[in-house]
């Protein structure tokens, strides 16, 4: 922008503060100094009148501007509701150990790196969940006996998908992330104990959740 960094010489320094005198956010010292100046300066009084009128007109314009679609509120509030219930169930069921880890993981979820981190952390959390909840022996046996029936999918998640949503979806299909992320940010999900029929069902479930899953394809073993 090619405008001067300073005000024209003829403009009173108090005039530069008038917009904030009009929106009532000056500190008391500046407010008083502007008020004193206004008593003796007709030019600044006129300027303040203009600014007050302008503020009113702008409020009219901005107030009449369109709102976002109602789906937006629905999807955001729903996402928050899901996270809330996951948080609560983690607190209730997982006991201290899991809740503490969950909280620590959550603290890492700064907005910028949510999607990538979410999936990486999922692997960690899922592993932890197995460790906490599953008897070791049985797990080993199951793994061996149904390994041939494990079905794999290549999946990429929507950027805005939350860790909670991804976790809930994985629970729903009884799947877990076994590989990824690749440079294209795809992951491999494994679902055990599948037959061709349940594979179709899983695929349909993944494809239906377009708000979470951006892309899904079956991997041939």
């Amino acid at each position, binding site marked *: *922008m090619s*405008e*001067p*960094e*300073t*005000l024209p010489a003829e*403009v009173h320094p108090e*005039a*530069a*503060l008038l*917009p*904030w005198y*009009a*929106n*009532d*956010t*000056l500190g008391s010292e500046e407010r008083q100094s502007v*008020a004193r100046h206004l008593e003796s300066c007709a030019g600044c009084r006129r300027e303040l009148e*203009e*600014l*007050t009128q*302008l*503020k*009113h*007109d*702008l*409020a*009219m*314009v*901005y*107030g*009449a*501007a369109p*709102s*976002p*679609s109602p789906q*937006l*509120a629905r*999807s*955001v*509030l729903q*996402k*928050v*509701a899901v*996270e*809330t219930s996951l*948080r609560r169930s983690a607190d209730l069921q997982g006991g201290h150990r899991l809740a503490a880890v969950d909280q620590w993981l*959550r603290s890492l*979820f*700064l*907005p910028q790196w949510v999607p990538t981190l979410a999936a990486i952390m999922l692997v960690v959390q899922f592993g932890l969940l197995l460790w906490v909840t599953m008897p070791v022996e049985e797990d080993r046996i199951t793994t061996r006996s149904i390994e041939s029936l494990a079905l794999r999918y290549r999946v990429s998640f929507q950027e*805005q998908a*939350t860790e909670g949503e991804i976790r809930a979806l994985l629970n729903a299909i009884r799947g877990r992330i076994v590989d990824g992320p690749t440079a294209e940010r795809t992951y491999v999900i494994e679902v055990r104990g599948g037959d061709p029929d349940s594979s179709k069902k899983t695929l349909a479930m993944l494809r239906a959740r377009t708000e979470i899953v951006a892309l899904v394809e079956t991997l041939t073993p």
Partner: protein
Amino acid sequence: MAMDSTHGRDDSEPDLLAAVAMGDPSAFDRTYRLYEKRVYQYVFSLIHDQTLAEDIVGETMIAVWRGAGTFSRSSRVSTWILGIARHKSLDALRRLGRRQREVDLDAVADLPSHTDTPFEGLHRKEVASVTQRALGTLSREHQEILRLVFYEELPYGDIAVLLGIPANTVKTRVFYAKQQLKRQLERLSQKEPIS
């Protein structure tokens, strides 16, 4: 001195955000409803794309939900939330290669001018229409700063933080933005046919 406040300034907003930080979904619900439209309009004014603007508002509000605990009370809640939205908007613009960054002159030209309304002083609608068209001719920086001062009613210190510019630049930019808007308003009011 009682100035009329656009959004009914509420000193309890930091407490509301503290409740959000504790994971209270009803506090988030209230926060969401207080800010949805304002954040959307601000984001839309920066990126001129309805779908993208809605995505960014969604991301912003989820970031508010998850990050409410990091709000430091050194600024207004609105400054903090708009700051998140602005950051995400600029990221999106960078990804888009800034192609939608400049003022959408076509959209401005399409606005109705209400020429068939009989002139009896300027009606509310006409004032709004002329003001909107005048605003549309300003640079994005000027439009943005006028919104932050006169609609969001932010202190100049908050605007300086939000835009990442010195407080003095905030003051001069508002001065020139207002001057520019006034010129455009005069130009458009003269062009407005009077029957």
